[in-house]
């Protein structure tokens, strides 16, 4: 199973700033290993952010996103104690979902 994400969500005025660090190889499929064989593409395809169970953002990612990606966005109207859930699915169908409480 994939390593956990690091999620921080902090209230700033009428919104919350969410910072997410994901642990993922993000292979482009363009690289070759030392034996000259192509390293198969392996990257996060879909990212979903939920605020108290309601989807507030979805994103489609591709191989151009860096290894161990960092994502930051604002959630309007989020308050202290609210729940932020981030999920991703990669092109191999592997999934990871982590939660954080807004502080």
């Amino acid at each position: 199973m994939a390593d956990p994400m690091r999620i921080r969500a902090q209230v700033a005025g009428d919104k919350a700033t969410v910072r997410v660090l994901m642990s993922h190889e993000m292979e482009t499929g363009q690289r070759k290993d030392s034996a000259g064989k192509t390293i198969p593409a392996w990257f996060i395809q879909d990212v979903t952010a939920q605020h108290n169970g309601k989807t507030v953002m979805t994103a489609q990612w591709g191989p151009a996103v860096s290894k161990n990606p960092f994502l930051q966005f604002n959630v309007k109207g989020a308050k202290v104690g609210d729940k932020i859930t981030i999920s991703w699915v990669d092109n191999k169908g592997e999934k990871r979902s982590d939660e954080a409480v807004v502080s």
Partner: protein
Amino acid sequence: MSHPSDATALKTILIASAMLASLAAGAQTKSTADGIAEYRKMLEDGNPAELFEAKGEALWKQRRGPKNASLEQCDLGKGPGVVKGAWVEMPRHFADTGRVQDLESRLLTCMETLQGFNAAEIAKTPFGRGEQSNVTALATWIAGSSRGMKFNLPQGHAEERRSYELGKRAFFFRGGPMDFSCATCHSEEGKRIRLQDLPVLTKNPGDGLGFAAWPAYRVSNGEMWSMQLRLNDCFRQQRFPFPGFASEATIALGSYMGVNAKGAVSIAPAIKR
């Protein structure tokens, strides 16, 4: 005929205006170093080293290896299980092994004695593979536990002083096809490789510079670099033969840089371009 004091006044005005001009120029041109510092500042918010810290902390507590034991009884120099402050006092002498060890060689000792792993086998594993990547994650977390603390390596034991002297010798030793030594790049102010400013390692280079900046996450290749890997790559850049992982030469270089960095604040794990 001009009065001497008039000439002095004119000179003062000229100097003052010249100073103003140079000040204005200084405010406009942002140096490359400033640009890189700004870039690093932006990256700090999402330093993926955090992921390795989390992994290292979990590994420390997890029962693993042939003996199915955790590393919680590992003595990093401040007593069994004490992690905070250990990094800023290493390499140091350990009575049980009878030699000076840096963090990574000490981790190998603990993984062998407590968990039953084969230390020699791990030392031979390339960086980033198998147990070696676990050692890096552990080192990242342990170093991170001393963030903001000042380097203060012990030099009380004769072996520790010997390690420092050995490190100094290694630091100034010239060789290889390019006749390089560590000192070629790291003993003068204002030197750089491409766009990277090089820290002066023969003295304390300042807080969070040189020895105080590692382990660090390298954005360019997406890898977590421990001090052993940092040194390994310095040897590669000098076209020296690769040093053995956790070998006496690498530990001695750590002693030399660490003792010189006395008083410098550790910012590990840092982020590098």
